[in-house]
């Protein structure tokens, strides 16, 4: 029973991380119509910036996390402005440049920091006990920050002027531009927001899980899973699906072992893509 609860809490913790990654991913697809193959790269970069700031420069951890978020957002902004914007109308080209950018990012990190995982651990240690269930404080902090970030994203998208403009762009770009929404400012902003979220997740999670140049690959795969499950471009779908994926992964890891959980998820997603390409909660899919 205790094991069941503890596993559930790990699932929630994983789910909240996936939610942040998937939210960014789905925002980019919903608003720009781009599948961001570089998403895992921004996650890794967030981890390394946080590591550099907190371990090498000795800054406090929250400052390092903030720096990681801002740095990844800034790079995302520049990438969108300089490279992605030129090919934004051609889905295959956007795919190629984001994929290429991911390879460049991963190699740059490898060159700068070397292939070994650096010594980078969460500054808060200790475990919270409730009955027989154990939850590390670090995971609780991650859950808290992730939930706060999710609430912020929801507020931004559904309650603010910028969010309204971005949703209008997602709905119909030509009409939205005709009504005065500024594509040239909003696209980089949306991209930067999404990559910033990936960087934030990386900064928070890599000290708990692992930090190495290649940890972005599984992140990309799981972002795909989550976003397809929830429906490409659907914000609510991504959030719900992230928690489903987190739970399945946590319970499968404890009770099934090996990669059976991941296998089950991938097969489920394959079937969903085929039967219901709009995903669980996606209503109207952007034309790909």
């Amino acid at each position, binding site marked *: 029973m205790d094991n069941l609860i503890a596993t559930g809490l790990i699932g929630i913790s994983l789910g909240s991380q996936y939610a942040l990654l998937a939210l960014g991913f789905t925002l980019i*697809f919903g608003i720009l119509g781009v*599948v961001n193959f570089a998403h895992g790269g921004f996650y890794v970069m967030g981890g390394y910036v946080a590591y550099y700031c907190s371990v090498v420069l000795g800054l406090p951890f929250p400052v390092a996390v903030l720096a990681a978020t801002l740095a990844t957002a800034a790079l995302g902004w520049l990438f969108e402005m300089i*490279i992605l914007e*030129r*090919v934004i109308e*051609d*889905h*295959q*080209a956007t*795919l*190629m*440049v984001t*994929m*290429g*950018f*991911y*390879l*460049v*990012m*991963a*190699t*740059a990190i*490898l*060159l700068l920091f070397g*292939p070994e995982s650096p010594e980078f651990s969460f500054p808060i240690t200790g475990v919270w006990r409730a009955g027989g269930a154990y939850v590390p404080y670090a995971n609780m902090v991650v859950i808290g920050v992730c939930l706060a970030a999710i609430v912020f994203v929801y507020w931004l998208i559904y309650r603010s002027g910028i969010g309204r403009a971005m949703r209008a762009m997602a709905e119909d770009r030509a009409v939205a531009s005709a009504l005065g929404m500024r594509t040239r400012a909003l696209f980089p902003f949306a991209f930067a927001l999404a990559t910033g979220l990936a960087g934030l997740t990386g900064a928070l999670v890599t000290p708990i899980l692992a930090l190495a140049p290649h940890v972005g*690959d599984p992140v990309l*795969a799981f972002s*795909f*899973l989550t976003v*397809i499950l929830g429906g*490409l471009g659907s914000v609510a779908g991504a959030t719900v699906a992230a928690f489903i994926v987190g739970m399945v992964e946590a319970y499968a890891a404890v009770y099934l072992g*090996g*990669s*059976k959980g*991941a*296998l089950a998820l*991938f*097969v489920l*997603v*394959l079937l969903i*893509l*085929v039967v219901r*390409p709009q995903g669980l909660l996606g209503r109207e899919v952007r034309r*790909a």
Partner: protein
Amino acid sequence: MSNQASIRRLPQARRPALLGGYEWATLGLVGFAFAVPVLTRNPQILSQTNLILIAATAALGVYIMLRMDLMSFAVPAFMAIGGYTVAVLSLKLGVTDVILLGVAAFVMPALCAVPLGWLILRLKGVYFVLVTFVLTEIVQLLLFEATPLTGGSNGLVGMPAVTLFGIELMDNSQVLLTTAGLAFAGFTITALFTRYFRYEFTAIEKNDVLAESLGLACWRYKALAFSVAAGVSGLAGFALVNMLLTAHPTSFAPMSSVSYITYTIVGGKGAILGTLAGAALLVTATDLFALKGELSPGLFGLLIIVVTLVARGGVIGLAAKAAGRLRRASPAAPARVAPIAAVPARGVKS
């Protein structure tokens, strides 16, 4: 009725030659690989040629699907099916004949691709990309999980050498001959297939809804192409397993599909020569700059971005453009249709 018949005959009548200049050049170059073991004993050159041929054959899977504007990440999945089929046949059933194994390595993935294609070919664009990516991840996980058949994380090791008419093909140069044979088969199949259906594929590439409404059964060509692409990938898988003498899941990692896509795009997706040129250039560059493993992804990434932004036709597209400019610049040359123009460099979206 007669109307329909004439529509069907029209493209047939206009097919002047099945294979164009690019195809002959490519097949000639691949065929030249048979001579490499005779010309040199340098193990470095032999293994380099081997790697290039395997990479190029694998990239053919991407090339075939790109002919219909579908970007496939499924190449490693079908390479794995081909490679493991060969490993299982030779280890568990004692089949070593290279021709039998080659046929199996083509047929098995091609058959697997039929139901899969039926499932996923209704998807287009981004969704097709995602579903092929997911498919490769599933195959990778299955290789680890289906231990009794695939050996799980240990892979299948200790394969006997393949034989041709009872002669063992064991040493470096003979392994290269096997690879060359498989690559030549793969390139011949691809060249004949993509040229025979070139009008159909071009129609689907340009606008499949329009093609469909004009009476072209798009799904049939897509399914056929998916199956052939899977079979050719299987041949590459066979060559890889034969070179390494083991079948291991890491040989078919999902991210390796990025490399095959890179070869095709950087070489030029407009002509079959592009996959060979891309594979030859990038595999050599990886080796030349001592970018073994670690740093080559960065180079690939940079090249992908540059090619996508400034030279959509890839290396072959650039070469064709340069050749065209040279021809126009020299007034002595008679104005004739260059063989190179038989296959226009595709990629620049109209």
